[in-house]
């Protein structure tokens, strides 16, 4: 009895994964590819959300079109090409690596190299090692002994 109840409950959660059952493709492999692609496509009216996460109407429209194109036999590159021809690179959540985005992609490396150079110069210019301390004078020695409590009473 308990097992049946648990199974019934697990059926309820199934609806939580699906974006919208009416939108889904019947071919599970193709549906999986479509869902993977949704994660790379920016919802153009949201703040940094993919169309996989968005309930906006235009995100739904894009999901419908992407699923349709998968069904027509187009691949990921062709579909992303279709979208960027209309929305530009903005529609991609991960900017492509090319001349215009070179600075964007390489900036972490540049910052690391610059920081490394600064650290290297700073270390190189540090005085080699502090010269060995000069021996204490008699006066200093007396004061030291007093402070350390080793001076005879």
């Amino acid at each position, binding site marked *: 009895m308990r097992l049946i109840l648990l199974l019934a409950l697990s059926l309820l959660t199934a609806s939580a994964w699906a974006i919208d059952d009416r939108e889904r493709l019947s071919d599970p492999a193709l549906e999986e590819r479509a869902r993977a692609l949704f994660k790379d496509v920016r919802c*153009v*009216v949201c703040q940094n959300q993919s169309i996989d996460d968005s309930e906006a*109407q*235009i995100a739904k*429209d*894009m999901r*419908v*079109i992407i699923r349709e194109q998968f069904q027509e036999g187009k691949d990921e590159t062709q579909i992303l090409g279709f979208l*960027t*021809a*209309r*929305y*530009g690179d*903005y529609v991609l959540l991960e900017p492509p690596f090319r001349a215009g985005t070179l600075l964007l992609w390489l900036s972490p490396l540049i910052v690391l190299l610059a920081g490394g150079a600064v650290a290297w*110069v700073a270390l190189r*210019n540090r005085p080699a090692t502090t010269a060995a301390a000069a021996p204490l004078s008699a006066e200093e020695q007396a004061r030291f002994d007093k402070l350390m409590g080793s001076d005879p009473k």
Partner: protein
Amino acid sequence: MRKGTKGLLFLLPSLIFVAAAVGFFLGLDPDRDPRAIPSPLVDHQAPEISLPAVEGLGLPGIEPAMLKGAPVTVVNLWASWCAPCRIEHPQLMDLAEEPGVRMLGIDYRDQPAAAVRFLKELGNPFEAVGFDQEGRAGIDWGITGVPETFFLDSEGRVRHRHTGPIDADTLKNNILPRVREIGGLTG
């Protein structure tokens, strides 16, 4: 370290400050819209799509051939449910009076009856209106919302795009000069 390099190092914070100040100053430009997404359609051929007529409107739908021929073709994406479209409408009526301008509308995700009522109430600036029930034409034009307006030359190439409603000021200072430039009609 050599004297020269050290002098340059002292200048570095000032240089960084100047670079940042220039960047911030450019960012303050009141004409800059940080949300504007540059349209890859500008300087490219307009999407060649056919759209059915709006039922009960008494105007033809959109055919790809309509995007060429006139000195300037204006394609306006609107909807009766869109409040900014209501604000923009008088400017579209003015634009339709401009010589050499062909006005085409795309009714985005709308109800035909509501669209007919909208144009009856506010006037009809369009020669033809295509009905985009499922928002497909919207995606083909790369819009993020309505209203959006595209300005095409006689070859059917997109030359300018305006996102959001065209207010009276924008029409006078920005849109009309562009329209005259595209149509080759100065003055």
